């Protein structure tokens, strides 16, 4: 259910743009922040608030890789698989995380704590390899530091 705060935010965002379609991405992201993912129900609620057909919202939601159409874990781990991180061995890091959490890319741990996904270059190549957990960027990752970071997250 979209709460009042979110509804207010969406309506306020409308002032920034000439049409209401332009707030779709921002609305989806704002609601996703609390709910974790975007269900069909969420979309139809947004659709009512901004008077944009659900089909249109869905066509947007499915295009972007940071809008999640399935439930995800509490923490999203994004590993950069860009070319510099490739050169600097992102695969080792990814495999270590994968093994430590016992999940593959695109999956969520059984306790719903972590989801692991790839991401394009995080603009941090001079400190590669790089991972991002939620909104935090981690530089010069080694297998050891990756595991330490994971263990420090509640």
């Amino acid at each position: 259910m979209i709460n009042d705060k979110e509804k207010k935010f969406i309506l306020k965002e409308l002032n920034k743009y000439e049409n209401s379609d332009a707030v779709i991405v921002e609305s989806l992201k704002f609601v996703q922040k609390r709910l974790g993912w975007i269900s069909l129900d969420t979309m139809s609620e947004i659709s009512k608030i901004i008077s944009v057909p659900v089909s249109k919202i869905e066509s947007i939601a499915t295009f972007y890789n940071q809008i999640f159409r399935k439930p995800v874990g509490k923490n999203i781990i994004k590993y950069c698989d860009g070319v510099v991180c490739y050169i600097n061995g992102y695969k080792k890091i990814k495999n270590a995380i994968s093994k430590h959490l016992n999940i593959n890319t695109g999956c969520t741990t059984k306790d719903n704590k972590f989801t692991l996904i790839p991401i394009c270059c995080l603009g941090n190549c001079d400190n590669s390899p790089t991972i991002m957990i939620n909104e935090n960027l981690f530089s010069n990752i080694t297998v050891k530091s990756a595991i330490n970071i994971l263990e420090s997250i509640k």
Partner: protein
Amino acid sequence: MNNYFYKYEETHPLTWRIKKFKKTIFIDEYENKRGYLALKFALKNLSPDEVVSIIKKSKLKGRGGGGFLTGEKWSLIPKKNYFGKTYLLCNADEMEPGTYKDRFLMEKIPHLLLEGILLSAYAIQASCSYIFLREEYFLSKFLLEKSILEAKEKRYIGKNILNSGFNIEIFIHTGAGRYICGEETALINSLEGKRPNPRSKPPFPSQSGLWNKPTCVNNVETLSNVPAIILNGYKWYKNISKNNDTGTKLMGFSGKVKKPGLWELPFGTTSREILEDYAGGMKDGYNLKAWFPGGAGTGILTKHYLDISMDFNSLNLVGSRLGTGICIAVDNKINIVSLLLNIEIFFSRESCGWCTPCREGLPWSVKILKDLKNKKGRIGDIEILEEICKNLSIGKTFCAFAPGAISPLYNAIKYFRKEFENGIDFNLPIIKNKVFGIQSNNLNNI
């Protein structure tokens, strides 16, 4: 005027204020170092046309990869606007693998970008500007938001700026993670809340862009160059470069080099200078095998091209591009086929899927590269890859994404064919006339 700063400013328009400082420059410090002077000067003494003409004369080229002359782009915006509104969009959707320059500027000196936006908006008489920012740049967003508030307080943004009668609003719009949004018309579609497929041109955005209004899209680094040109003049700007491309460029090296990073350097600097003098050369135990001049979408080059001058023309002449100007070093421990596989997986993942050659061709190349990497390639595979490169070259697809995607592959086959051949298993039967994916017109000889 403090001489120390002045000295740097003469050669480093983007970074002289941050030379010795690790922290972000906020408004007080920025103003102390001649910040917003260009804006004050222009609003008082220059007409919008004069600003356009100075930028035109400065020959500033777009720093987002395209290299189009900024002044020319601005002068395409109709002077008489019958539509009521003109938009200036700042492209800050930095996602090119291997690039970290716009993030650096936004995190270190956000007011420089804002001043650049204000001046550019004044030049084209835009009354609204959106910074299309990549979602993952959370810190940039925070710093830009803070800086916009600071600038609003000082009346640099808003209505009747500094009593000049010029009005402008600046909004931050964050994306949701698609590389194609960096393409200017896809960016416009994305902002409008459409699926971000590129638009066909004409009409060009300068005539009909965001919400069908005249629109100009400029990259972060391009806009950040504008204040210094207005303040010091186009002649000065031309003089700080070592060759025909004017001004400076953020250039850098990443990969297995001793000091990965970026530096503001004049055009005409060679990639060897960047690699050896600034990035400290290769790490011990690694040798340079190949390099990219400006991100993963630029043609790969061998070390024999290291003495090339880093500018638009010189790199075009050797079959590559300046792109974002941030080089990537590929070391001798990297297998070229596997590297290209990584790159083409990225591009096929990010293709917007609008046109067939790109949507089908890239996954096809991934499939073949995977086989070659696993030494299960078939005779004829390299030729199919070459054919795919041809079919995705400039003019064959809807936008420039596909030619960018394929240029590293094309060059890699040219320079490292042996490594591709090593992936072929000669025991596998030659499959004639059986191709998966798109049917190319010219496969008879395989």
